[in-house]
């Protein structure tokens, strides 16, 4: 497993096992989702969702398509509204709209399946827009930090190009840098590798694994089981708008409790 292409971190100094504690109790909560319900017309897409993600915790959300996992991810920064329940980020209730919501969104990074880089702005401008307009940093300061971040994700030499001139993997890494430039408290990833060609998936996962190891709080909707095994503290399995089970990755992948999770894993791990 340690020969995985994205595993370039030094071996841990401590003995191989046991893994660091995954207990949520020891972490202060960063994201608290309590009793969230959402409907699309008659369709009950999120059903009484409760989920607490601790500071520095990496949670991978798995589930078949249509299970509501992307919707859940998007409700956390209110790109999707919800009918009842509450979501708190770092103890602060998610405002319904307006400037307060914009301020809170600035603290919640989001990486989309389709990258969504600003098509009319250069790579550098994509990364500096938020810091300059929202964080009110000077252009020089924002440029310097953006260049550092672009270096960290390996696309600094492309900073004067436009998004359409980059490969999908490069665009997604820029999108991660754009989110990081806001110094977010938590990062949401909504199927970040699903629109990528297979050979570009690892370059994005590399960046995400590195980010997870740096202590970032992350909620990742993905089908990448390898990433879940390597980087996740907890796997949350969703089906039909409900959280069916949650467990440490190894436990979930080797001993899923629910029939639905067994069925799901059977389908995706068998090939």
């Amino acid at each position, binding site marked *: 497993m340690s020969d995985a292409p994205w595993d370039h971190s030094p071996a841990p100094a401590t003995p191989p096992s046991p893994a660091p504690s995954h207990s949520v109790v020891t972490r202060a909560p960063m994201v608290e989702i309590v009793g969230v319900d959402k409907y699309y017309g008659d369709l009950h897409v999120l059903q009484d969702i409760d989920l607490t993600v601790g500071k520095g915790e990496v949670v991978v959300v798995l589930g078949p398509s249509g299970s509501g996992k992307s919707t859940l991810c998007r409700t956390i*920064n209110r*790109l999707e509204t919800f009918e009842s329940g509450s979501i708190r980020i770092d103890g602060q209730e998610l405002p319904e709209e*307006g*400037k307060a919501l*914009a*301020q*809170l*969104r*600035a*603290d*919640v*990074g*989001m990486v*989309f399946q*389709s990258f*969504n*880089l*600003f*098509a*009319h702005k250069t790579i550098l401008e994509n990364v500096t*827009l*938020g810091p300059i*307009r*929202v964080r009110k940093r000077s252009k020089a300061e924002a440029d310097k930090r953006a260049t550092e971040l672009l270096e960290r994700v390996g696309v600094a030499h492309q900073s004067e190009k*436009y998004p*359409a*001139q980059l490969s999908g993997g490069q665009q997604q890494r820029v*999108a991660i840098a*754009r*989110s990081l430039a*806001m110094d977010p408290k938590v990062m949401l990833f909504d199927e970040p590798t699903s629109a990528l060609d297979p050979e570009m998936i690892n370059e994005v996962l590399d960046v995400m694994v590195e980010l997870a190891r740096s202590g970032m709080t992350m909620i990742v909707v993905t089908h990448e089981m390898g990433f879940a095994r390597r980087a996740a503290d907890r796997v949350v399995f969703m089906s039909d708008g409900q959280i069916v089970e949650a467990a440490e990755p190894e436990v979930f992948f080797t001993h899923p409790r629910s029939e639905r999770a067994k069925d799901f894993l059977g389908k995706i791990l068998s090939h």
Partner: protein
Amino acid sequence: MGELFATYPILAAFGMTLLLTFFAAIGAAVLGTLVAVLRVSPVPLFQKVGALYVNVFRNTPLTLIIIASNIVMIVNLGFSFTEDIARDNVYWAIIGLTVYHAAFVCESLRSGVNTVPVGQAEAARSIGLTFGQSLVQVLLPQAVRGAITPLGNTLIALAKNTTVATAIGVAEISGLQKTMTEDRIDLILPIILVVAAGFVVITLPMGLATSWLSGRLAVKR
């Protein structure tokens, strides 16, 4: 032909046409953008106000608007910018042209907004930009690029629609054409050719610039 140019202020009349076009274009761009912002805003009341504006002014004949600006505003309500009646009429003609074409600018921009993928707005919101910042920094710049061709059409229509200002006595080219035709019916063909050529000279570059710009500024996705 030389006789026409010697006798009548043809260039000055085309100058007035250009002046009306220039200021009404700026006015319509500003007002049309504001109305477009109302129409794409998330507030239902604003959307309704924007839609009402477009439907009233887009569906009203320009001649009616121009004459109303003169008769209703100046004569009935006494709104005058200046004692100089000729200049006052020019001001009101610019306003009439502005409010009419703003409706078309708004709809062109809205068609441009529809070329911007929804993910662009989501990304803008997700980094904490307010609605106004998303609009100014992300949506409108891309919408304008997507709307250059319809905006160019509106500009060309505006240049030609300035001829309606003659209805309230503004000394632009179509008013002069009428005078010239009445005086010199023997020169009817040269008169028509000169006026037609003048408009081609004004509008052709607009069309060429539009095509060039829309190719150059197109947002690559």
